[in-house]
């Protein structure tokens, strides 16, 4: 029996990376993937404003383009020294995890392809060089956050995780450890339920909308739940004066997953040819 699950849609899209398709798929699956037992779940209909739970990006701004959403952000204004360094568009520690950046060679098959024609996007997949660290900007894959006693633990579904310490510790000197994909984060919960996170020690590189980041750059993330608990805004605030001529901010929005949703597993198997394959767009009518 053919089963239409969230995985059916999502895994076919990973290798192609079409964010717009993922967003559309996410919208679709949330209408389709709710099991019949959802009504039995102990999820209150009116949620307190909390960042805890299961979230997915369903904003459709910029649909139809890889960087359609980020093109709507105000571009970073950089100091002359860094104006040439920042990469355009993406960055910001997106993705990560086993199949993320650094995961093997990129095939040269970048030519045009007809509808219905799969092609190799990545010839060698599932290499993680000590990563297993979640990126900072969650892609269209859902993310899940638990507020533990001393930390907020965030995971996506490809095995990577990120910790935001809530136990009152301070940020350490960046010189004591090598920078990583998600850096070192501390945070606190505000009265409105928002989680305010301060991070440093992230690997140097591009930041969304033309920004840049050094390992000792400190930046702020605000996870702000809506009053009804059903939506989440994630705002980034960069203000490293060495890099930015004026503060650089941008934000993403998320929706709480439907009751009855569960965390899927992206099992990265390097021997599976689908891991390196593109999406297969259907023939157009």
């Amino acid at each position, binding site marked *: 029996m053919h089963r239409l699950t969230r995985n059916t849609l999502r895994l076919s899209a990973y290798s192609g990376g079409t964010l717009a398709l993922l967003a559309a798929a996410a919208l679709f699956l949330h209408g389709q993937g709710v099991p019949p037992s959802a009504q039995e779940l102990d999820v209150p209909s009116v949620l307190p404003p909390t960042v805890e739970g299961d979230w997915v990006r369903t904003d459709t701004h910029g649909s139809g383009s890889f960087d359609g959403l980020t093109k709507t952000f105000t571009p970073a204004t950089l100091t002359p020294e860094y104006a040439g360094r920042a990469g355009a568009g993406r960055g910001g520690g997106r993705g990560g995890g086993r199949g993320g950046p650094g995961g093997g060679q990129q095939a040269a098959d970048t030519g045009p392809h007809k509808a219905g024609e799969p092609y190799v996007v990545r010839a060698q997949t599932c290499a993680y060089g000590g990563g297993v660290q979640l990126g900072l900007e969650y892609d269209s894959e859902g993310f899940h956050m638990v507020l533990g006693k001393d930390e907020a633990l965030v995971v996506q579904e490809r095995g990577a995780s990120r910790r935001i310490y809530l136990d009152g510790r301070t940020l350490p000197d960046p010189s004591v450890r090598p920078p990583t994909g998600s850096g070192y984060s501390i945070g606190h919960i505000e009265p409105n339920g928002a989680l305010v996170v301060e991070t440093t020690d992230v690997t140097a590189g591009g930041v969304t909308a033309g920004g840049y980041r050094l390992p000792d750059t400190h930046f702020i993330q605000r996870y702000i739940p809506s009053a009804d608990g059903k939506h989440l805004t994630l705002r980034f605030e960069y203000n490293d004066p060495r890099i930015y001529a004026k503060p650089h901010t941008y934000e993403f929005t998320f929706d709480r997953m439907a009751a009855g949703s569960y965390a899927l597993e992206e099992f990265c198997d390097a021997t599976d040819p*689908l891991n390196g394959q593109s999406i297969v767009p259907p023939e157009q009518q």
Partner: protein
Amino acid sequence: MGTPAAPPYGLHDISGYWELGSDTRSVPPAVLLPGITKATLDKVADGDLISMRWCRPLGMPAMMDNGRPLDIQQGRWEVLMTPEANSSPRHIYTNRTQHINPDIFDPSSVGDSIGHWDSDTFIVDTIGFHPKNGRMLIPGGGYRTETSHLVEQYKLMKNGSVLSVTFTWTDPKVFKTPHTYEFRYTRVTGKYEPRQAVGCDPWDEDRTAFVERAFSPALKQQAEAALVKAGTPVSAKPAAAPATKSAAKPAAKPAPGRK
């Protein structure tokens, strides 16, 4: 005699980092069905070695004993477990009492877990294991299949400094009687900071040579035959291989959710 000091941790407080020591596993041999032969077990063990060679994620039960501390965080609706290893996290849902409908659930290497507190014991019930993904061997003997059922009992000991986890596996395809063993984890105190896991690159030729050095020639052939190059139609079989490779698992078969 004065009032006993209050325990530093609540009876239900299992959040924290937990590690196993060299003498913290009590694992009796499993009683297996008569049809589970040594050859069967050897084949599963070979499959785990091939998974190791290709850096496939651990899954259950290997992630519970991966050599590094296990992060357990109790949330409002779930208990989340993440190892410092290449593995999917475990989501143990405490906001539902039934498993996800199998017609909808995508089997995974960690299964579908639900948990509840019964007095001072956190009881976790897991089904929905993927038939191939993850390391399959179970401590004490046997292996998991898609029909495996795992019940775990988590209980704090010694004022919350030790976490006893009793694992009980049943499977009509594997075990003659329920197979039970216990791990006792020690709480990592202080402001512990997880480290980056050691990387695993299946395309690193030096690593591959090192890993496969201990493989038999036949197993080495199986391991290499498991690779189906990206772009190969999923309906196609792996490239022609010597007769000895025919025993190789059809690793290219898509997961159920991808059909």
